[in-house]
């Protein structure tokens, strides 16, 4: 009985597909492009990760060597350390700030909301090349405006981009500045889904705005915050444009701003070790997958 039901269902499915073949035809370009430009490279790079290949010419099978090599690969390990440091430097602060800004913009007390929203979102849509060059100029040790400003308070010029720890902080600052608006808009969308009646009810019960923020906003925003943090985690590991331009295509002072994807790019396209670069991609995939699972477990809703 159940089997027959299954078969009828399958037949129905095929019938439905046949019936809707024209709509399927219309959406097929996406799937064809996806298969050619995303799926195929993904599978091919998995295959490549077991070979030594310089980008052209013959490939040499090396088994798991590319993967085992990663355990002793100093720049790769350094890039992971950098990603962890960067993550803790900017993600908590940026997410919190985005939430506060979103709450302010969502509240009824603030005027000119769309103006503020636009201004905070503007860095995200500004060309990254221009932004990063501007930061490079601002932070220059000898000619930068930041040091000029500090000099008015009698502070000696600071080598912002030329000291490992400061360079990472500058990078975190740039990333925060650029991605704050994006996170804020995501969180704002979440906030607008919270029914205002909840706040009204809390108000009637005598809750202060702070109390309703911590008791209503924060718990209800958890899924949205989790989403933002997940995106930031992936974003930190795949950070590329900002460090690439800010530090003249290098990894920054003593590889302090070498992000995993920047190292992947260098390994593949500058050092021509495409097998090794592919293995880095898959190692990063596994690491991100595990971190994602962990974050969902810690922050996710309990059923």
């Amino acid at each position, binding site marked *: 009985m159940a089997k027959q039901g299954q078969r009828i269902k399958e037949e129905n499915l095929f019938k439905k597909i046949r019936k809707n073949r024209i709509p399927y035809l219309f959406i097929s370009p996406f799937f064809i492009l996806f298969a050619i430009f995303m799926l195929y490279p993904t599978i091919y790079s998995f295959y490549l990760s077991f070979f030594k290949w310089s980008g052209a010419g013959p490939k040499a099978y090396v088994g798991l060597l590319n993967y085992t090599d990663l355990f002793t690969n100093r720049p790769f390990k350094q890039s992971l350390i950098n990603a962890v440091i960067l993550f803790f430097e900017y993600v908590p602060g940026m997410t919190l700030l985005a939430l506060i800004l979103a709450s302010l913009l969502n509240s009824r007390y603030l005027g000119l909301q769309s103006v503020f929203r636009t201004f905070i979102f503007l860095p995200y849509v500004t060309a990254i090349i221009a932004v990063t060059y501007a930061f490079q100029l601002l932070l220059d040790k000898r000619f930068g405006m930041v040091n000029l400003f500090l000099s008015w308070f009698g502070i000696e010029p600071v080598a912002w*981009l030329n000291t490992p720890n400061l360079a990472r902080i500058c990078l975190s600052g740039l990333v925060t500045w650029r991605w704050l608006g994006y996170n804020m808009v995501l969180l704002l969308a979440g906030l607008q889904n919270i029914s205002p009646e909840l706040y009204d009810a809390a108000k009637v019960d005598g809750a202060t705005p702070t109390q309703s923020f911590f008791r209503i906003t924060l718990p209800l925003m958890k899924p949205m915050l989790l989403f933002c943090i997940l995106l930031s985690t992936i974003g930190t590991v795949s950070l590329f444009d900002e460090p690439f331009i800010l530090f*003249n295509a290098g990894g920054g002072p003593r590889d302090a701003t070498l992000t995993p994807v920047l190292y992947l790019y260098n390994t593949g*396209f500058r050092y*021509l070790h495409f097998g090794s670069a592919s293995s880095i991609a898959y190692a990063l995939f596994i690491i991100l997958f595990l971190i994602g699972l962990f974050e969902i477990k810690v922050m996710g809703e309990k059923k």
Partner: protein
Amino acid sequence: MGRKIRMLISTFVVANLFVIASTGSVLAKTTLTVWWWQFWQDALTPAIEDFHQDYPEIKIEQEILGPSDVYANLLLALSAGAGIPDMVGLESSHLTQYVSLGGLADITEEMSPWYDKIDQGKWPAAKDKEGRIYAMPVDSGPVALYYRRDVFEEAGFPSNPDSVQPLVDTWDDLYEVGKQVKTATGKFIFPQAKTNNDFRIFETLMWQQEAGYVDREGKIVIDSPKAVRTLEYLGKLWKEDLLLDTPAWTAGWYAALDAGMVATIPNAIWLGGFLWSWICPEASGKWGVVPLPVWEEDGVRSSNDGGSNISITKACGNKEAAWEFIKYIFTNKEYLIDAWRTADWFPSLMACWDDPFVDEPVEFFGGQAYRKIFAEAAKVIPWWDYTKDYHEMNSIMQVYVTTYALGEIESAEEALTKAAAEMRTRTGRE
């Protein structure tokens, strides 16, 4: 009926004529694409016009890309096996990578009459392991010491080249000058940042002593005594704050060269062109050039930085035509000297080095015939091999030299020993 047949025949004949005419023109006209960057176009436009006139059946189509785009696109084209240009311009520092990829055509036979007539320092990058040649060297980057006449005067030194030269006879002399410049003017002896740069000056100074990343057998020798001595020298200058800590090719670096915040800069001949054309055109008359200081008595007063080459790809449809083009332009003294004049392109073709052109005084350099110094330096450029691992070795070197410059590793020897060890694991060299 007869008319119809006549019509048919005449249509057929006319159509045939068209076909023949069009295939004929296809056969006669070869189009060769070449990828290179703005510099080439600027320097070679008149030469290419002449070539088109003399060889009407060959058409050169230039595709102007940034150097890094040339390399990225070429790599993609080679691995895809499609969209490969017929010829491509490559810097020496990148050439060996593409030789090892196997996408360039072997031009050993064609090059043989020119082999002895070209800067010998160019060959290691253009050859594979078997000694086959894959590129025509085009320009070289002999190095000398540029200096600011105004800064020297400010520090109480004479400023004409003849009196400056004995002042900076050795690198130790330059260090003493640097101290004096610092105390008298607060300015720096030359720019070399501690971080965020590829340490080209460090490489140039090693190149002067035939010490580099690898020796002639391809073994890693970045921890050699000569390299250690060079890094120690830079370390001493960093410690005493004699070097301008600003990475090259950033706004701060341009500003420093323009404002005369550095007294000297050991650099290649092409920098001179950059100085007068866009870095500091207003500083005309303030710059001078003297040969490089030496490391020991009778040392070589020469080094090299940069330089490019032209290659035919394996995929090239008409290698004979491509070679005709290369021979026409890059073995022609007149064209190369024109390029030198307009774009400060120092030809690798030795015949150009003794041309009266090098004795012409140049106003920007205070009326000095500064090209002569570079032409002399080019004759004695020491041996150096970039190898296909250059970029990886350079990025490893950066890390350890930065660590040393920041004082986190105390000794230059330790820094370079660590760098050498990592280079050996990463490149699989000895």
